[in-house]
């Protein structure tokens, strides 16, 4: 479970990765993969190429050495023929020939002739003294094979015939018939002097070389012969057929001489050459890779500055706009052409939306105001009929004074109601309005209720919405007093508190349930024309804001108290409303 959660988290984190990091990672990975793959391909190609190259060089070198050594052995063969021709001659002539030969050919150590039993017949040297009793004669080959065109060459050995003189030589032997028809063997001991010259200087690659081996792979001559004799080095190539042999890191190239059992072997250390160069290439590639990575990281940050960062701030701005469009202030984002275009468009859109929203709000307000004003203009017709009925009745009864008072009150009521179309009127006027209304109603509901004003004189000069008190009083009369048996009491007070004006209309009528109170504040008055309590509340809220308006407290059989809160408004400050 934990593992799964962790993986999920990692995936989530990866999904939340920013664009520039993604860019850096992607480019790095691509560069890395390309470099590694190309390196591998390169190394492989290079290796093959180098190997081919090494083989070719090796082959060429070996052929060259072969040709020189071949010429040398042919030369030796010629000398052998000369020796065979001269050995039969008169003693003096032969001695002359041999002393000259040994002088000219410094690589010929000794020329010896043997009888069939291996006994030395004659021996010519460059002044060396023959041992009286030699232990072993390494120059004599018993049962010499006879093959046309093939030189008989021994393994390298020490010259064992002379006193205090032990050079390393190879012996070329040949059988021949002497004047008496006896078979004699002629042996020429040759030092490595010349052969060394031919072989030593041939290099293949940095550490490659050539050596000469016989059929069994035994070394005849090696540039490092001493190391081989000191057991510090050995060669492992035993197959002496012509061709190229690749052994782990060494290439052996074998080429055989036609006239003897010698083979030229080229040794070439490919791996050394290749690994050396590949190492260099790898290290420079690693440097390049590091530079590319650094460059990528740098580009990533530039990319982030140019694209990712502006996008992030755009996204943030959009979030802000979504959360609070009304008060949103847009700071333009700079960046690439696309980003600027996006930013500009968003700015235009935001401004446009804000403008539209404001327009809609304003339209709604003015619509509402118009609606409310239209309602204000309406007069409850029943109230008018009843009042006019009452006045008519007074006139008939000859109560002229009362009738006059009534008509005056009615006139004041309407005058204030209209107030030349102003919505806000001084509280004094509103008070008069309420008084006129109460006056009229008091005539009609004779002795059914009493009323009382408690007014802070300082409040009178402030302004308030017109027809604020009348609907509440109306409500108090119709709902509170109408059905009451006892005499009702309506108390109206106007006070100020800090920056507010507080109106209260209190009655001791039947009261309302909580549901009724809410209903009064919510429901548009439908039964009768005129202004309802909701209308009053709405108007106050529209004009002064949500914190102002009506609150109703009521208890059944105890009475109702309506409180109206309004800001202190002076003349002029709301003139235009």
């Amino acid at each position: 479970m934990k593992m799964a959660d962790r993986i999920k988290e990692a995936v989530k984190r990866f999904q939340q990765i920013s664009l520039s990091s993604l860019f850096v990672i992607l480019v790095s990975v691509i560069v890395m993969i390309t470099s590694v793959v190309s390196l591998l391909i390169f190394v492989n190609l290079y290796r093959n190429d180098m190997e081919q190259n090494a083989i070719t060089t090796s082959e060429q070198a070996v052929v060259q050495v072969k040709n020189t050594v071949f010429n040398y052995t042919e030369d030796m063969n010629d000398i052998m023929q000369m020796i065979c021709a001269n050995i039969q001659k008169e003693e003096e002539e032969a001695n002359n020939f041999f002393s000259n030969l040994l002088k000219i050919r410094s690589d010929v150590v000794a020329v010896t002739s043997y009888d069939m039993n291996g006994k030395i017949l004659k021996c010519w040297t460059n002044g060396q003294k023959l041992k009286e009793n030699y232990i072993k004669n390494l120059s004599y080959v018993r049962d010499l094979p006879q093959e046309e065109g093939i030189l008989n060459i021994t393994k390298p050995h020490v010259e064992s015939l002379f006193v205090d003189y032990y050079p390393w030589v190879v012996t070329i032997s040949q059988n021949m018939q002497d004047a008496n028809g006896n078979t004699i063997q002629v042996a020429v001991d040759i030092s490595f002097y010349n052969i060394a010259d031919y072989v030593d200087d041939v290099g293949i690659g940095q550490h490659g070389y050539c050596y000469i081996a016989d059929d069994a792979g035994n070394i005849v001559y090696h540039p490092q012969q001493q190391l081989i004799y000191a057991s510090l080095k050995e060669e492992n190539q035993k197959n002496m057929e012509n061709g190229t042999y690749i052994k782990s890191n060494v290439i052996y190239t074998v080429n055989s001489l036609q006239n003897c059992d010698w083979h030229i072997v080229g040794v070439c250390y490919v791996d050394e050459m290749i690994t050396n160069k590949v190492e260099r290439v790898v290290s420079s590639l690693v440097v390049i890779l590091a530079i590319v990575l650094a460059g990528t990281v740098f580009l990533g940050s530039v990319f982030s500055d140019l694209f990712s960062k502006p996008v992030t701030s755009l996204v943030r701005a959009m979030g802000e706009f979504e959360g609070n469009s009304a008060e949103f202030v847009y700071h333009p984002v700079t960046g690439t052409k696309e980003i600027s275009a996006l930013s500009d468009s968003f700015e235009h859109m935001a401004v446009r939306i804000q403008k539209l929203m404001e327009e809609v709000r304003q339209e709604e307000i003015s619509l509402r105001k118009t609606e409310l004003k239209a309602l204000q203009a309406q007069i409850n017709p029943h109230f008018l009929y009843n009042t006019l009925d009452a006045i008519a009745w007074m006139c008939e009864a000859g109560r002229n004074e009362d009738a006059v008072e009534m008509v005056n009150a009615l006139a004041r009521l309407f005058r204030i109601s209209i107030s030349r179309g102003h919505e806000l009127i001084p509280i004094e006027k509103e008070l008069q309005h309420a008084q006129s209304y109460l006056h009229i109603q008091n005539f009609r509901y004779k002795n059914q209720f009493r009323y009382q004003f408690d007014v802070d004189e300082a409040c009178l000069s402030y302004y308030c919405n017109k027809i604020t008190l009348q609907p509440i009083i109306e409500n108090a009369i119709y709902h509170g007093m109408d059905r009451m048996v006892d005499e009702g009491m309506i108390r109206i007070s106007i006070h100020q508190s800090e920056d507010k004006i507080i109106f209260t209309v209190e009655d001791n009528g039947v009261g309302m349930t909580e549901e009724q109170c809410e209903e009064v504040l919510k429901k548009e008055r439908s039964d009768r024309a005129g202004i309802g309590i909701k209308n009053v509340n709405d108007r106050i809220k529209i004009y002064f804001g949500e914190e102002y308006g009506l609150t109703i407290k009521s208890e059944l059989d105890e009475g109702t108290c309506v409180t109206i809160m309004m800001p202190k408004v002076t003349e002029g400050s709301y003139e235009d409303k």
Partner: protein
Amino acid sequence: MKTNRWRNRILWMAFLVCLVLIFCLTAFHRPILNGKESESSSDQKHKVVFIAKSTVSGFWKSVYAGASNAATACNLDLTFEGPKSEEDYETQNQMIAKAVEDGAEVIIFSAVDYEANADAINDAAGKGVKVVVIDSDVDSDAVSCRIGTDNYDAGCKAAEAAMKDENEEIHIGIVNYDKNSDNGQKREEGFRDSILRDERAGIDAVINVLSDTENAKKRTKKMLKKHPKINVIVTFNEWTTLGVGYAIQELGLKDNVRVVAFDSNVVSVGMLETGEVDTLIVQNSYAMGYLGVETAYKLINGYSIKDTIYTDTIAVDKENMYDEECQRRLFAFEKSNKN
């Protein structure tokens, strides 16, 4: 904002890491290139000084051949020197001091005197010169590598050869050289330990002679006269071998006295053939020289090395002297025929 800052920090970190990487690579890169350059340029060779016991004996010539071959292969500047007399440790000490002065990085050293050479070697090591010991050891902890014959084992081989004697009693005379020379003492010790297991054997006389032919011959003659019963003589280096050989030759005792000797040169091989000397214990001197210089090269370049390298020895007598293996060891391979 927080993630932004965090990401920026990571980017910077990555950038720094890359920079460090580049720096490291170029820093590591350069020495490799420099190493190659210095390898190819000939004027800045590392200096190695080889101080031998002698420069004239066949043994040391062969060591020198190996050493100079290795010096060519490793591209080192090799100086090979040694005192005229094989007892002259003072000259050796001077040579050590001079080598240090001349800026040798490695001294390859074969001590005439196990103790008397120690201070000079310690001084040199104190100055940062690495020391490789060849053939004959010196009493110092500063030696990086010791190369040579397992002398005790070589002594045992000599004993084996001596035990081939068919006489009922083996009377042995030991002709050794300088008592302070470590390798001679080890050979003698090995020989004694081995030979005394044979009931027939008894050591009649031990002489320590100077390491030169004349002195050895004289002292050997004297010893043979004093102890006429001696039928086996063992001697432990090239010069004493010749001395003993000549003594036997002059006294005409080649059929009566079995001589087991050390090292080879043209003369001692001749004696082996003619019978004055019966067995030669031949060391792989060429390998010693080569390995000595190769080890010096490894020390200079900081490769790991073994602290002891033993080179092999073979026992050569008349019967096997012309076997391929023995030929190779007895006779130096020289490319030119100029004798």
